[in-house]
């Protein structure tokens, strides 16, 4: 870009936005809508992932050792077999005495357990896995180990979260692709209107010796400004919406067990993503629109 032409490019780019005010407004509005929908699904997916991660931290499969096996071989003998099950990342042996102490420790009045023996409980393993989605495989694998009497796993809750996470991920990704294409199309048409309006001017430019870059710059700037505007507005709308929904969810005690990702932790990456997508849509749409006018 020649320095002496910068003023001209900016003036032409900005004036084109106002000349086709309605289409400019429409393309910014569509960009904002697409980015907000995209952002909302991404934030939802992020929060579900965070909830699933919390769930994984708290959720363990408990594998109880058969009492007879414990008496003959000792419960700890099964540790290598437990660890060899696919998807198992670690396993913590909990003896029946430790389990008893832990159980009793949950109560203030321990006197009521004085006549109880730890023998009523069984040795057990707290088994952790790589992904809660593999909980069924782990359960089956553990059940095949001779000496494991019973397995306790919260299958329904785990699978529910995993299914939700998978659906949201697929929907988010599909929406991102579809909405980017829609935005690109609208932006391209907005800039194309300007190129049609200035068709004669472009022909004159070419005849007096304008280079392709000279012709292209005002249109690229128009797309750049619209894309930038769309991205910044979308970011503000997304911020407001997220704060609003967070406040509503957090004030509802029935879902108080859910911890949401604070907006501050995603603010910068989200702004960067919005800017990148907005500018790509703006500049990409302009490039598509002007392409045919740069031949010959």
């Amino acid at each position: 870009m020649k320095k002496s032409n910068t003023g001209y490019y900016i003036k032409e780019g900005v004036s084109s936005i106002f000349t086709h005010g309605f289409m400019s407004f429409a393309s910014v509005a569509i960009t904002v809508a697409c980015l907000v929908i995209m952002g909302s699904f991404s934030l939802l997916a992020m929060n579900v992932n965070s909830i699933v991660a919390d769930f994984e931290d708290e959720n363990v499969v408990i594998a109880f050792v058969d009492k007879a096996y414990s008496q003959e071989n000792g419960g700890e003998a099964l540790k290598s077999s437990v660890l060899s099950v696919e998807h198992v990342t670690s396993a913590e042996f909990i003896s029946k005495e430790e389990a008893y102490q832990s159980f009793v420790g949950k109560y203030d009045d321990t006197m009521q357990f004085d006549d109880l023996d730890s023998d009523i409980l069984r040795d057990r393993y707290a088994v952790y896995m790589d992904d809660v989605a593999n909980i069924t495989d782990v359960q089956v694998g553990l059940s095949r180990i001779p000496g494991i009497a019973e397995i306790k796993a919260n299958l329904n809750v785990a699978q529910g979260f995993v299914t939700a996470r998978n659906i949201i991920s697929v929907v988010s990704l599909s929406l991102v692709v579809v909405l980017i294409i829609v935005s690109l199309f609208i932006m391209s048409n907005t800039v194309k209107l300007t190129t049609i309006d200035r068709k004669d001017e472009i022909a004159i430019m070419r005849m007096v010796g304008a280079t392709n870059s000279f012709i292209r710059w005002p249109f690229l700037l128009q797309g750049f400004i619209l894309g930038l505007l769309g991205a910044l507005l979308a970011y503000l709308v997304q911020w407001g919406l997220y704060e609003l929904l967070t406040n509503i969810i957090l004030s509802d005690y029935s879902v108080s067990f859910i911890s949401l990702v604070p907006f501050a932790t995603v603010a910068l990456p989200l702004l960067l993503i919005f800017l990148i997508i907005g500018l790509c849509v703006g500049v990409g749409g302009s490039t598509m629109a002007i392409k045919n006018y740069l031949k010959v």
Partner: protein
Amino acid sequence: MIQFNDVYKEYANGIKALKGISFTLRDGEFAFLVGPSGSGKSTLMKLITGEISPSSGSILVNGYMMDKIRMRKLPYVRRTLGIVFQDFRLIEKKTVYENVAFAMRVVGAPNREIRKRVPYVLDLVGLADKATMHPNELSGGEQQRVAIARALVNNPSTIIADEPTGNLDPARSLEILMLMQKINELGTTVLIVTHEKAMVDEFSQRVIAIDGGHLISDGMDGYYNYEEV
């Protein structure tokens, strides 16, 4: 200098527009290009401006070989040419001054040079007092003068005009051709495509005549002589 050497042009639909055209227009020359509709005049003009390429033969335009030129070099050829059209092709929303300045801005001329050169060229074509007017406030002849000023402003070595008097009455046509002759006397090569027999005969200048894609006459004997051939 413009040089055509055995140039043929056949379009994709099979129409043979030019069949072995050869001529040379030297620097500083003035020539009319005449011929009936469909004779190949427009094709010849498009070959000079690089809008199309020849099927065979070679074309030299102000030092550029047009039959071998790369797309990205075309703007630089066009900067050596000043092109004037029958329909003026002015930008309605710009003033006379802005229309002329626009041609300089497009080639990256600095503002200081634009401020100096545009008034000089407008004075040359007799429109110094109309600089702030818009094209729709001017007569046809004045609009064509603006187009000529725009073609001249970048100091091209050649002016090519495609039917520049086609939309004007005889008196205004004569004025425009007189202006072209004046520009030629200042050192610019001029090639004018026209149908105006009377006008061509008024000027004792070279006439290149084409018909059916062939060059049928090239000399100083006027349009009348071409019709006799």
